[in-house]
């Protein structure tokens, strides 16, 4: 069997998702036995005109990024985003709600007008090209990544959990964050992280994005019973671009 060719690309982001791939350690060495990694950075792309699976990290912020992404899409059979920046825009999208002139001046002062400091608004990958699959999270979960890649290699269709984080949180025996008077996105966020943040004493930040069909009514009921508003919920949702 010919090994599928995999290429990994990144745009604006922290590259923490790629680090999760490195952190697979031995598992990574075993993964690269079943796939042929033909590119893992923009730089090598000219040498490998075609690949089967493209993995994309990061958001799109500049015209040259968009051009590069369209080229990648044209060359990929399957395009998979990894992480929140690629999937929803992630924290990068926070600045879309602000005046871009003010944003530029806040960071670069009087130099903000220089040509090489110009960027546009932030877009998720699927706002620019069609995406076949999204591996969510900030950062991605290494085990989920491995499962998705192995499923793709076997010719299957990977599935993500369709239940909210609350399910995993209950299973972990955590006290509900609303009991602490906090606003938690667990009721509407896609599970798969093992309710990692609530298990470590924080509310769910919604980094994995909403489940496909969130039970909004139930979420409203929870919010109301703890005296919280939908506005507070939305403010937290905005943190990771949802």
């Amino acid at each position, binding site marked *: 069997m010919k090994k599928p060719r995999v290429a*990994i690309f*990144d*745009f*604006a*982001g*922290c*590259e*923490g*998702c*790629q*680090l*999760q*791939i*490195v*952190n697979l*350690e*031995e598992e*990574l*060495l075993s993964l*690269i036995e079943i796939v042929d*990694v*033909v*590119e*893992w*950075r*923009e*730089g*090598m792309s000219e*040498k490998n005109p075609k690949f089967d699976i493209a993995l994309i990290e990061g958001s799109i*912020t*500049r015209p040259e*990024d968009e051009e590069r992404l369209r080229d990648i899409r044209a060359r990929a059979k399957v395009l998979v985003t990894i992480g929140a920046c690629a999937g929803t825009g*992630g*924290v*990068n999208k*926070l*600045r879309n709600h*602000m005046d871009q002139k*003010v*944003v*530029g001046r*806040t*960071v*670069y002062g009087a*130099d903000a007008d*220089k040509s*090489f*400091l110009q*960027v546009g608004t932030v877009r998720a990958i699927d706002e620019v090209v069609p995406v076949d699959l999204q591996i969510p999270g*900030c*950062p991605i979960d290494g085990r989920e990544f491995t499962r998705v890649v192995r499923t793709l290699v076997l010719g299957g269709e990977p599935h993500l959990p369709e239940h909210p984080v609350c399910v995993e949180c209950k299973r972990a025996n955590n006290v509900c964050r609303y009991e602490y008077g906090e606003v938690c996105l667990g009721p509407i966020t896609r599970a798969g992280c093992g309710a*990692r*943040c609530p*298990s*470590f*004493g*924080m509310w769910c*930040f919604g980094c994995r994005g909403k489940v496909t069909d969130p039970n909004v009514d139930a979420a409203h009921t929870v919010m109301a019973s703890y005296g919280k508003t939908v506005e507070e919920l939305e403010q937290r949702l905005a*943190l990771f671009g949802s």
Partner: protein
Amino acid sequence: MSQLIETRPGEDDRGAASDAKSKHVEVHHVTRVEGHGSVVLDVDNGTVSRIAWQVPEAPRFFEAMVVGKDWQDIQTIVSRICGICSISHSLACIKGVEAALGLEVSEQTDRLRRLAHMSELMQSHVLHIGYLVAPDLLGQPSVVPVAKSHPELVGLVVSLHRLANRWSDLVTGRTTHPIALQPGRMTHLPSAAELIALQHDLETARKSYWRLVEAVGGLLGGLPDFERPTEYVGLVDGFGYAFYDGRIGSSDAQVPLPLDHFEQACNEYVAQDSTAKWTRWHRDAYAVGARARYNLNGQHLSPLGRQVAQAAGLEAHKHNPYYNTVAQLAELGHIMDRGPELIDEILAAGLSPERPKLEPHAGEGVGAVEAPRGILFHRYAFDAKGRCEKANLVIPTNQNHANIQKDMEALAPTIIDRPESEITLLLEMLVRAYDPCVSCSTHFLDVHFVGAKAPSEERD
């Protein structure tokens, strides 16, 4: 991380007619917030006409994005500046937020944060030494062929890296983008049993560490012989090897600067063609990172750290930027000593859950730590409701840009007679030594030789 993929040697060298009197060498790659860069070297008639270290990364505007956000959300946002040193960013952030809001933390919280911090220094250093530098020293393009030619070495690197990651997971909840590091408290405590198990594993890992030292130590002859004394900047506290706390020390200054005045040390400016800001203090450039820390605090290294520094000849090469990797190796020894000691202290004091009532008030404050790549500053101002009004973040890689440029200016004229592949490797290794960030260094695999063009053609 493209280091994990084999490049195809030879392809890059097409058209590289070496030994020509005129050359145009470009090392180009894409960028990210911590400082991706490109190198351009032009040689006209045997002299260097241009050597430029450029940082054209996609700017992400974190200092603007946190404005208006609640004090409890700042760490979650700024952790995302860097996937590799998110624990350091989180620590600098929450210390800055606490200084601004007037929040005090318990000794328990302070000790657990120091423990978390060491875990990140360990993971980052092991990654850099093992995955990025070792292939250079072995003449290999990436860690993949090294895994075949030196399986024992890669096995050591993998085991130490995995241990460091487990350590971060245990204390902070996640290796990348920590959860438990929040203003005012740790939101989660490891159990005594978990800490004892970690301590045991760290003590067992000393053997692996020592074998790594022997393996890497035997390859140090491969480090280029290049010296350029510069100014070294890092945290100093007068009594220890400062990672987590202190004032701003400089090899050019008698008296350390209080953290609150860090802008006077950094003097940031926008350099041509770089989206990252550059810095300067007493000279036109200064260095931060493991070698700077060693130059400022070397006498305070733990016994194991000092032993490694001595065995590797670090003192004699402390002005050689390529020896930053050796300083990292010595710091790993320091951590192998101090980590288990700190766990002893934590266990002796006992662990008790805390839920302090945190009342924000208006204010401004600074937090700083030594990130793996050097001193990191975060300044925040908040209004009375705890909403962020202003942020100023100065990251280590930006503080090294000017120094990298000055090193290249000194190095380039001495190597222009060598084959282009060698020139490229020496320049790449120099940038890699500063460990700007994992991805940055690996971007340097992408090397374009435009070849030996006539000088007139090089100007476009």
